[in-house]
Every structure is written in structure tokens, then in C-alpha cells.
């Protein structure tokens, strides 16, 4: 490990933290309130700073100064650990997502994800199944029936939709022939200068298997992040607030940030797995200067990310919530069989050389 490696590592962490994680995880709360206000013909927060831009800051300060309550009979360590457990997996998963094209520094290629690992897909799936712990332990440790009920129903939902999500990701792995996310998005980039012979089609346009995998992944992503229409966590129409009923002050805020970080992670993965990451039909990839390519690629990636983040918010304020039995029916009897058949079809098509 030389000095360049260390410098690149800190550079990438700084870039992804400042340009991706911070604005998207924190400012999404403001965007959510603004979009919900526009959907309902209101103004939304507009008092703190111009257009309410400092609202997240004010919220943060408020959360820090709120009283911290720990209910009687709560398991103290787990109760405090749960918010961190719910936010950490989503933020860790960002580390494997390549935000732009690889750059050349002193003759060496650097993939632009914090951790360019060959087992990125299993890592993502492992972190995805870890997200359940925050909810389950937070609910159980609060020593409250309402929390426990909400925690059980939302973790049951997450476990059910994980399977369909896993299978649709495996379909993408079959199409790309790799489990490294940089290679997966490069396989969707039509370009010769990057030294790869690829069809260059975004996975979402690889009809039928890629498209079906995308639809399944999108629905499962909504369920995994516990967003509407799968909001089994909070069920805002019900009087009690879900698994984090007993969590107050910054602990609640951490659950909140965790939800937005999970949305961000899912948007980044949808972008990378199905929409070619930073590539734009070969326009960006064919640029000669690697640094210009990386810069424009980053802008393209951020734009796609923002579109999917907006989709998450838009859907929440448009669609009503599913009933509990409908959630399980969709997960086990529709999405799971569809994704299994889709996976078999993808395998057959790859073996026959169609793709």
C-alpha cells in the first residue's frame, strides 16, 4: 500500500461522504417534506433559511436537545444499540457502489468505489439482511407490546421480500458475469476505450429478463426500506408509532436517518445494477480525458440517483398502504415465483448465448 493508495482512499471517502451520503441522507428529509407539501397543495417548511434550506440543521439541533427516555424494563444496551444497527448497514453498503468511471493516477487504474471488492453482491445481500436487526432488537428491547408487534410485522415483511430481491440481483450477476459492481456497470457501457467487448445495453433494457428483474428489485426495494406502499413499520393511519415508539431524541433521529440512508443505498444499487451507473449510452464513456469522463460520469450518476430518490418519495405520497395480508401475498405468491422463473430463464438465455 503506497501513499497514492492511501490518498485515493481518503479522497474517495471524502467525495462519497460529502457529495453522496450527506446531501442525500440528510437533505432527503427536507425534500420529502417539500414534495409531500406540493403533492398536498401546501408550502412545506419555508421558515428556516431561504426556502427552508436550513430545516434539517434545525431538526438536528432540536433532536440533540430533546430528553432521552429509556422505558422501564427496557434492555438498556440493546435499546441504545438498535438505532445504530439500523443506520450502519445502509451506510456501509454505500462503500461498494462505484460512483463514476475508473480514473488513472500515475498510470494505475482506480475504481471509484470506496471498497472495490469482488464479492460486492454477497456483501450487499449480507448487509441487507442485517437491516432487520435494528428493527427487531429496537422493538424487542423497548419492552412495549406496540413496539414488538410493529417490529415483528415489519421484520417479517423484510425477510419475505429479501428472497425476491436476492434472486433478481443474482439474475443481474448472471447477465454481467461478475459480482464486482464496477465490472457490472462497465458491462452495461458500450465502449472500446475501456478495453471490454460489451453489448453495452443497460440491464433494464435487456428484455425480458433484465426488465423483469428490475421490476422485482424495485418493488422489493420499497419493501426492504419499509417505504410506502409497504409501510408496515409505522402505519401512520394507526395511533401508535411503530417499532420506534419508545425511542426519543437522537435515537429516533438515527432511525430516521437510517431509513433515508437505506433509500439512498437502494437508489444507488438500482442505478448501478440496472441503469448503467455513470454511463449514458456510451456518450460519457467515449470521452478521451479520463478525468473529464470521471467528472461527467459522476454528474450522470448523481442525477440518476436523485431521480430514484425522488421516485421513493413520490410513491410514498401518491399510493395508499397495502393491507398486511396483501403484503405477504405479493411477496411470497407473486414476486418469489416470478423471480425464480426469471432466474432460470436468464440462466438458459446466457447458456444459449442470446446475451
Amino acid at each position, binding site marked *: 500500500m503506497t501513499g497514492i493508495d492511501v490518498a485515493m482512499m481518503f479522497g474517495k471517502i471524502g467525495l462519497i461522504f460529502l457529495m453522496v451520503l450527506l446531501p442525500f441522507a440528510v437533505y432527503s428529509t427536507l425534500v420529502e417534506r417539500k414534495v409531500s407539501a406540493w403533492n398536498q397543495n401546501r408550502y412545506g417548511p419555508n421558515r428556516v433559511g431561504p426556502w427552508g434550506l436550513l430545516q434539517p440543521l434545525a431538526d438536528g439541533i432540536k433532536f440533540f436537545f430533546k430528553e432521552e427516555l429509556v422505558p422501564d424494563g427496557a434492555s438498556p444496551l440493546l435499546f441504545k444499540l438498535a438505532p445504530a444497527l439500523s443506520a450502519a448497514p445502509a451506510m456501509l453498503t454505500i462503500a461498494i457502489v462505484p460512483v463514476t468511471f475508473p480514473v488513472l493516477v500515475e498510470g494505475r487504474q482506480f475504481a471509484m468505489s470506496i471498497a472495490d471488492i469482488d*464479492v460486492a453482491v454477497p456483501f450487499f445481500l*449480507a448487509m441487507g439482511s442485517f437491516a432487520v436487526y435494528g428493527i427487531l*432488537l429496537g422493538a*424487542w428491547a423497548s419492552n412495549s407490546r406496540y413496539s414488538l408487534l410493529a417490529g415483528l410485522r415489519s421484520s417479517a415483511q423484510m*425477510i419475505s421480500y429479501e428472497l425476491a430481491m436476492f434472486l433478481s440481483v443474482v439474475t443481474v450477476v448472471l447477465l454481467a458475469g461478475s459480482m464486482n459492481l464496477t465490472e457490472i456497470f462497465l458491462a452495461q457501457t458500450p465502449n472500446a476505450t475501456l478495453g471490454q467487448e460489451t453489448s453495452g445495453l443497460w440491464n433494464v433494457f435487456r428484455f425480458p429478463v433484465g426488465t423483469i428483474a428490475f421490476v422485482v428489485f424495485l418493488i422489493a426495494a420499497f419493501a426492504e426500506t419499509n417505504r410506502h406502499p409497504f409501510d408496515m413499520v409505522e402505519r401512520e393511519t394507526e395511533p401508535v408509532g411503530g417499532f420506534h415508539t419508545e425511542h426519543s431524541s437522537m435515537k429516533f433521529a438515527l432511525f430516521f436517518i437510517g431509513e433515508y440512508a437505506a433509500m439512498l443505498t437502494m437508489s444507488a444499487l438500482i442505478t448501478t445494477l440496472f441503469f448503467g451507473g455513470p454511463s449514458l449510452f456510451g456518450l460519457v464513456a467515449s470521452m478521451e480525458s479520463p478525468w473529464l469522463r470521471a467528472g461527467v460520469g459522476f454528474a450522470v450518476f448523481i442525477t440518476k440517483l436523485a431521480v430514484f430518490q425522488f421516485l421513493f418519495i413520490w410513491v410514498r405520497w401518491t399510493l395508499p398502504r397495502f393491507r398486511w395480508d396483501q403484503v405477504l401475498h405479493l411477496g411470497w405468491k407473486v414476486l418469489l415465483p416470478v423471480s425464480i422463473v426469471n432466474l432460470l430463464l436468464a440462466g438458459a438465455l446466457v447458456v444459449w448465448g442470446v446475451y
Partner: protein
Amino acid sequence: MGLVGVIFLVLAAGSIVFAANVVLRRNPAACAVNLVGTFFCLSGIYLLIGFPFLAAIQLMVYAGAIMVLFLFVIMLLDLRQEEPRNTPIGGLLAPLFAAAVLGLVVPFFPDAEVKAAMNLTPIQGETASWGGQGLAVALFGRHMIVFEATSLLLLAGILGVVVLAKRRPRPGEDAPASDLGESGR
């Protein structure tokens, strides 16, 4: 001892502490959480000896899937009361038994492998390239029969549990009590 050695020591100590907690804690949910910690440390050790795929699978299957089900069941049963400590005979026998097994097994370890494990050198040779592909080829190629036999073993285990856990009607009772309670339809 370099950085890798320090990381190994931390992980090894962590896994032992977590594992001891699994046995010693009286609260079932706390035991389950500690078991997750043990799996985390083990997966870190897999990473150190050069098996990233195995580490990820360990996290995904054991820590991510199986332990979530364990916790789920614990919470559904709602075991709020902590288990009382029962007679310490079992507690005394278990370490003795473990020590005896260890004393029997360790002398028969191939010396080189033990040394390799102690020095934390990534394992060389055929298995060194075991990312996903090498593992898949080995698992579904050369060791196919072993793999299938293992799944049969699991099936036998499940059947055994079902037989053991099934509630039979006692001679006096008429119908077997429903496990589903009043809402069982």
C-alpha cells in the same frame, strides 16, 4: 506482529468473549445477539486468511438469515423471564468434555496447517483462488456427492426435530392440543 496480527487477536478475543456470553447469559435474546457477534468475528477471520467470499456468505447465511429467524422465534415466544440457573453438573461436564475432545483432536492436526493458521499466511495452492467461481466449481463439481449428502443430513435433522417436538395426546386426553391457540383454524 504486524497489523494483521493485531486484528486477528482482536477478532479472536472478540469471538471467544461473544461465545462465552452465548453460554453464560440467561436472557435468550441477549444470547442470540452475542451469537451474531461471534459470527461477525469469525467472518473477519475468514477475511484475514483470504476467503472474502466465505466471509460474505458467513455473514449472509448465518448472521443475516439464520440468526434473524432465531430472534424471531425468541420474540414470538416472548420469553421474558430469564432462565433460572439449574444444577451445575452440565456446566461442569461441558468444559471437561470440550477439553478432552480438543486434547484428542489437536495432536492429529497436520502440522503445516496449524503453523499456517498460527502465522496467518493466506492459504496457498489450489484453494488460494477461491473466490465465488472456484468455490462453485469445487462444490458443484468435485464435491457434488458430499454436498448432496449434507443436504440429506439436514433433511434427516429436520425430520428428527419434527418427530421429537410433535405433541402426542396423552392417554387421558381426547384431541391433541392445537399449537395455534384459539385462533387455530
